[in-house]
């Protein structure tokens, strides 16, 4: 079939000569994601808009289930040799993806190879930092980002004679006790146990969760969050848990309904909870920055993000990479970013989009949406607040949550629980380090 090869070569040469021939086949790019409901509509609209904007590439989004499902589907597809072009992976999957050299293509490398205009400086460092190497090389493209905030039920606060929402942890503890009188089953609660009480807490207080800049500088990182500071938080919460002044709401966000129903008047969870609160809360509410211990030097520092980013898989054809690079440029467009942010409530990823939204006066009408951005940009990120890169983070979070639960239900002292979380976590990190590609 020699002439066929010749034909293909000739066709390539011709199509190279006339850059965009009308008969040129459309390159399809698979995009696997985990977005449901209105967020799924956003994904579909982005793909449609991009496909309509040019005729060489076609982005095909497909929903693959939860974040964990997408990651597992992607891993299985890669093992079977047909991974998608773009995969949406949650922030805790970052280390797993990054360790898979050869399975992924770093975004900064892709953009450079494809000659797309790409300036890492134009992105918000608090967001891209999470997805970059310690040298500042961007590995994946941030898609939907949020941060953690404290949601407060202003009516309930008024009823309990609390003048203003709490700013510090001691104030939170005191207010939780006061709220207990009017809300006996829950004064204060929080979702995403590990993310809020350990991960965000460490960044916000500028203390390390692990060595090597929380793992950004190497897989030989060692966890070290069993210090008196973290113990103090957990001791206070365990004490408040006894009479339900604080009441734990589970490992994920399934307990968030306790805020909107009015049961828990103070609730620490993701800023992405906003559309839900807006639709369901029948009381005056607000979101305020996470509390901090005022006796800690430099607190509050800056918060870290949650959410997901887009990873480009390795071993794809040059045409596909060209299309993906163009799609990322399309996504970075200032108007598009600002629009996405204002419609979906996700944080903008470029500085220009943030500035534009500010200039539009959007935050004056929607101050709650600026709270997570103010937290993220509160101070320039340090080693302790740039992000986390722990291998097997999905499972680590379960271990941390288990130990938090043991402390809260009195099976262990808070100190023992944190010690055990650290030692079990370190054993898992060593296992990950060992299996990681050298």
């Amino acid at each position, binding site marked *: 079939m020699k002439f066929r090869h010749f034909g293909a070569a000739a066709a390539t040469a011709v199509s190279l000569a006339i850059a965009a021939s009308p008969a040129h086949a459309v390159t399809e790019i698979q995009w696997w994601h985990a977005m449901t409901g209105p967020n799924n509509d956003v994904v579909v609209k982005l793909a449609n808009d991009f496909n309509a904007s040019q005729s060489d590439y076609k982005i095909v989004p497909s929903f693959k289930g939860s974040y*964990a499902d997408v990651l*597992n589907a992607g*891993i299985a597809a*890669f*093992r079977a040799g047909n991974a998608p072009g773009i995969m949406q992976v949650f922030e805790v999957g970052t280390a*797993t993806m990054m*360790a*898979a*050299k*050869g*399975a992924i293509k770093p975004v900064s490398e892709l953009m450079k190879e494809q000659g797309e205009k790409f300036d890492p400086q134009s992105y918000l460092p608090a967001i891209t930092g999470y997805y970059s190497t310690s040298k500042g090389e961007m590995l994946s493209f941030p898609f939907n980002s949020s941060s953690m905030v404290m949601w407060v039920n202003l009516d309930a606060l008024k009823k309990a004679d609390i003048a203003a929402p709490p700013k510090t942890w001691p104030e939170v503890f005191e207010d939780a006790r006061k709220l207990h009188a009017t809300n006996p*089953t*829950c004064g204060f609660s929080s979702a995403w146990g590990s993310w809020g009480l350990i991960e965000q807490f460490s960044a916000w207080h500028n203390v390390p969760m692990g060595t090597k800049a929380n793992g950004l500088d190497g897989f030989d990182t060692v966890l070290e969050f069993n210090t008196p500071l973290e113990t103090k938080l957990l001791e206070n919460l365990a004490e408040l*848990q006894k009479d339900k002044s604080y*009441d*734990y*709401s*589970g*490992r*994920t966000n*399934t*307990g968030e*309904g*306790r805020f909107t*129903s009015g*049961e*828990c008047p103070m609730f620490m969870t993701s800023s992405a909870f906003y559309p839900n609160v807006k639709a369901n809360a029948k009381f005056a509410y607000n979101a305020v920055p996470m509390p901090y211990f005022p006796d800690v030097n430099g607190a509050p520092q800056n918060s870290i993000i949650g959410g997901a980013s887009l990873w480009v898989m390795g071993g794809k054809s040059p045409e596909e990479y060209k299309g993906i690079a163009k799609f990322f440029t399309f996504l970075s467009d200032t108007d598009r970013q600002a629009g996405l942010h204002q419609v979906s409530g996700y944080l903008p990823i470029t500085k220009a989009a943030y500035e534009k939204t500010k200039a539009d006066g959007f935050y004056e009408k929607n101050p709650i949406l600026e709270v997570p951005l103010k937290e993220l940009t509160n101070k320039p990120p340090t080693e302790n607040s740039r992000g986390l890169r722990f291998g*097997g983070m*999905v*499972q680590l979070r*379960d271990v941390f*949550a*288990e*130990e938090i*639960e*043991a402390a*809260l*239900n009195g*099976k262990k002292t808070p100190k023992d629980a944190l010690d055990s979380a650290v030692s079990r976590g370190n054993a*898992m990190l060593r*296992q990950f380090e*060992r*299996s*990681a*590609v*050298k």
Partner: protein
Amino acid sequence: MENRAIFSGKTLAYLLVLPQLAVSLIFFYWPAVQAVWQSFLIQDAFGLSTEFVWFENYVALLKEPGYYHAIGVTFMFSALVVFFSMAIGLLLAVMANQNIRGVQIYRTFLIIPYAVAPAVASVLFIFMFQPGLGMIARALQRSGVDWNPVLNGNHAMILIIIVGVWNQISYNFLFFLAGLQSIPKSVIEAAAIDGARPVRRFWTIVFPLLSPTTFFLIVVNITYAFFNTLGIIDTATGGGPNGETSTLVYKVFLDGKGGSDLGGSAAQSVILMIIVVLLTAFQFRYVEKKVHY
């Protein structure tokens, strides 16, 4: 002997069982062999680096205190689910076996829960038992019970047992009902004429005659409680709080899926497989002797 000639060769017999053998080989033996092979490896999630480590995954597993805890949780959970789902299934079958008006309707309704997928069943029960939101949870709280399955291990365990039992009752009901209907009426009538009351008739005649069904159901239910309850646990408690509802099969799933630790997960599944094989062999060896066919 024309007729015998047709069946004398073994070829046809083998041909007839071939489809079943092929299914068993591809869907049961091949994955089982792969699990054993995987359990000797340490591999990254994407399969890019592989190291052969012999029994290291097993050694690591047996050093983990959480693993023994999961064994205990599994046996307690399974025993309670098997007992209650069979006891309630039998009770309902005995009642639905009577000559009452509309018995067909009762029977049909009693079978419906079996059509509900375990994960969906879990969601239904979460609606009722979610603290602060669920109807039953609120009723419990109002009556002074501090119902809190996210933090209280016993409550979480009770929750998954209720869902597990509810989901399996229909299956047991169906088999017990079939078993009851195959018991000859004449035996029971003879006992009635001799003056045995219904309760006595049940324990001395019906229950022993049901023993083949009961034995079959014990084997099936144990397998159910060991394996098929994964969806229930994942949806209802996620193994929490503090691993108190994390059964062996859930741990296999969690470590393999969430942790991408395929070697460790495979080692667990091999041990789990051995446990269930031993358990079933034990039942056939000792319990079956008490069965009257």
